[in-house]
């Protein structure tokens, strides 16, 4: 599984670049300018598709951690590590592009609403995961510890959402775009964004897995 990902990195890269070009073209030339918000609404296509890769990355972190704890196979730990790092990249982009859209539309950079707050907390959880890995002594214990935190993090997420909902009440964040009754052009452009971002995610993940594998091999050679 890991070997397949590492070997296919180049293919994912080519696909991702192509899809990004198509997506950008659609954003500029194909997607209509929205009447109320004007051209800033097009931030939508750069903001929303980040969500899926981010959740996917964090899901892989929890899954990899769980499988590592059960089977003790290093490749699962590497999967968890790669998922967290790539997931944080996309989650950062959600957290950064959101305010850039919110400022012209809502008038504030940040509102403490449900989705924004929950995403921010999610970002903090997996940033903490990366810190835990980065600042440990690099022993085997780190892998176990990180696995436990990765699992604990994903379990906490629904509770965080529920808590934030209680504390902050209703969301002003738009609903699921599929249900919002968008024109077909907008939906297609959004879809292109999702595909492009997922391909970028696949490319990043495969490269990150390769790096983790190379590190592990090198470590093995230095102290077998």
């Amino acid at each position: 599984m890991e070997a397949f990902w590492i070997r296919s990195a180049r293919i994912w890269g080519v696909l991702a670049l192509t899809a990004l070009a198509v997506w950008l073209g659609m954003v500029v030339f194909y997607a209509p300018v929205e009447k109320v918000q004007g051209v800033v609404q097009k931030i939508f296509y750069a903001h929303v598709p980040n969500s899926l890769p981010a959740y996917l990355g964090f899901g892989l972190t929890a899954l990899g951690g769980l499988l590592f704890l059960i089977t003790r196979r290093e490749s699962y730990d590497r999967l968890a590590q790669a998922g967290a790092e790539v997931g944080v990249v996309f989650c950062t982009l959600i957290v950064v592009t959101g305010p850039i859209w919110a400022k012209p539309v809502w008038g504030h950079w940040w509102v403490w609403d449900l989705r924004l707050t929950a995403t921010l907390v999610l970002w903090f959880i997996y940033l903490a995961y990366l810190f835990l890995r980065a600042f440990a002594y690099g022993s085997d214990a780190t892998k176990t510890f990180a696995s436990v935190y990765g699992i604990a993090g994903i379990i906490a997420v629904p509770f965080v959402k529920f808590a934030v909902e209680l504390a902050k009440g209703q969301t002003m964040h738009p609903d699921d775009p599929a249900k919002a009754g968008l024109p077909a052009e907008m939906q297609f452009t959004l879809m292109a964004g999702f595909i492009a971002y997922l391909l970028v995610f696949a490319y990043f993940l495969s490269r990150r897995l390769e790096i983790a594998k190379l590190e592990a091999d090198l470590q093995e050679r230095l102290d077998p």
Partner: protein
Amino acid sequence: MTGARVAAAILRKDLLLDLRLGDRLGQMWVFAALVIVLMSITLPAVNDETRAWVPALLWTIALLASLLGLARSLQTERDDGAIQQLVQVPCDRGWVFLGKVAANWLALFALLLWIALLSALFLDVAWTRAGFEMIGLALLGSLGLAALGTLLATLASSSRFAQFLLPVLLFPLMLPILVWASLLTRDLLGGQISAAPLWGVLALYDWIFLLIGYFTFNAILED
């Protein structure tokens, strides 16, 4: 029943240590007192409008103060090399976790009582209005903090930057407890009947992290 005996032995040892040395509790208490006094002086006088802020403030202070105690909960074992002996216990090592949690639970509950006393004194919080349910809430809140704190302090202790890692790991996962406990405290102080689901979900969250700690401590102590 060896497991329960091991947990009880760890609890007794930690309690004795806490009572005899007193430094762990003392540090948390002094810190909490300082923050509350500082807040009381700095913030404008509490009026009816700002009273709603007080519970969240107090729970946050408890969280901050708890860092001092949690960070040290495994330190003694590490310093004396006793951690090797903990690994050798003749039972599931999850019981070691439960023993540690129990000791931290008592210490943190004591911290909450201390914060309640200080806030009654300085911030005019009328705890008598909240009734006995407040004690139940303090027990649930400190149990969650103890479970999460013990688990995460153990994870953080492997690092050179444990001081930094503990809050970074702990705060995001503590957020739900902080929110529910603050809301429930506000309701109780306002003499309201608070929603039952909130109590249930708080207990559930505590329970989940007790389970996670119990089942993963085998692997954690092994490494």
